[in-house]
């Protein structure tokens, strides 16, 4: 029985922490925020909102990105006490954001039928690419990919996760993750900036 959002696999990776001059100052802000300091939390928000919002935009779309981002930070505030400093705050927040996004996607009922297992992936997607307007720029083209391919592409090529990690996050097998990625790249090559 699932009471809350689906548990999402733990990731072994530590994505590169952006050089924000964070370090000690951020650690202090995390501690302050955990003890209820709203201003410290606002600084954390300012430092990380672009990354979270971009992830949300790419994963789930522009329409709900604002809403999801708010949700991520509200949840982060609630859960800050569980952050034990084993990973960088940015990494923790990023994982939290992915969890929130995946939970939201589930609640939007968009998770069904997004993956096509096995070697048939290219056959299973429409023969006419979903992204067929060559005037789309690269980023718009990412947004127009089928859900499954887009999620895998974003997580792998933009966020740097490995197939095994993506597979466990999305509840698919690594082979599906690989074929979805390839499908996404094959589609996107038609939208490279000329």
């Amino acid at each position: 029985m699932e009471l809350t959002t689906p548990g999402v696999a733990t990731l072994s990776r530590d994505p590169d922490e952006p050089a924000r001059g964070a370090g000690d100052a951020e650690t202090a802000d995390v501690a302050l925020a955990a003890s209820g300091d709203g201003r410290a939390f606002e600084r954390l928000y300012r430092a990380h909102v672009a990354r979270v919002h971009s992830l949300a935009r790419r994963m789930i779309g522009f329409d709900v990105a604002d809403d999801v981002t708010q949700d991520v930070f509200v949840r982060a505030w609630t859960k800050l006490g569980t952050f034990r400093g084993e990973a960088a705050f940015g990494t923790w927040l990023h994982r939290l954001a992915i969890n929130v996004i995946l939970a939201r996607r589930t609640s939007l009922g968009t998770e069904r039928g997004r993956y096509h297992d096995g070697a048939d992936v290219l056959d299973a997607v429409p023969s006419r690419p979903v992204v067929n307007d060559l005037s789309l720029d690269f980023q718009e083209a990412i947004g127009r990919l089928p859900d499954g391919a887009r999620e895998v592409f974003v997580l792998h090529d933009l966020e740097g996760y490995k197939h095994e990690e993506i597979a466990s996050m999305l509840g698919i097998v690594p082979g599906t993750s690989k074929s979805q990625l390839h499908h996404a790249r094959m589609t996107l090559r038609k939208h490279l900036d000329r």
Partner: protein
Amino acid sequence: MNVAAVVALVVTQQTDTTVPVRAGMRLDVENFGGEIVVRAWNQNSVRVQATHSSRDRIDVSAERTTVNVRAESRRGLAQMVEYQITAPTWMPLNLHGVSTDIEVDGTQAAITAETVQGELKVRGGSGQLSLKSVQGAVKLQNAKGHIDVYSVNEGLTLENVNGDISAETVSGDVTLQGIESANVEVNTVSGDVHYDGTIKDGGHYRFATHNGDVTLAVPERANVTVSVATFNGDFDSCFPVSVTTTTKHRFSFTIGSGSARLELETFNGDIKLCRPGQLHDKHHDDQEDN
């Protein structure tokens, strides 16, 4: 305890005193640093063997109702004494330490044991059993009675214990194994809670943590109304349950006639129910989701 080494640096001295006691008396020991080990025998006397600094004197005094054991120092400084005490099985024990490990074996009477920094290990005991440590694990085995165990930052372990149980810690796991009880209350703020024992008809059981999982073995023929509450966690059961009432963050269900009451709460952790014996095989492989 590394106190022994410290004691060895100054000139150590052995004290060995035996005093006769009669039924109705209790033993009262205070120690600052070192250890208090009490073993039980079937003689009506208390033997106190102590290893201590030559600057300290061990005072064993039998009054009307109490045998008091104290160390006195000429300079009035903190004493470090290792006590090996043998007392009658029937004799209630009152043991206090500061930086002191306390160990009791074989007593069949009430025990109060408190230490600030040190482990508490008790095998045996009956009646009022109160074991408290700030910094140090508390372990109680083969005891029965009214049991109250408390630690601040270490775990609590109870094995083969019979009676009313209250176990509370701030940071530490609470593990209750082989319990025979109709009244159990367990609280921790940051730690897992594990219970494997009886669920008796009409009994009351409450297991609560803030950051931690709660796992429970529910016997096959239990009759219990279960109330589950979690804010950020999941609920999982090895056997089917049908939820009767649900409110936000809380739901309940009934097993059998439902005559016992069981409350399971964790703010950030998961709750898992299994049958006895299943919990060890089915380790949670879920990880923290963030």
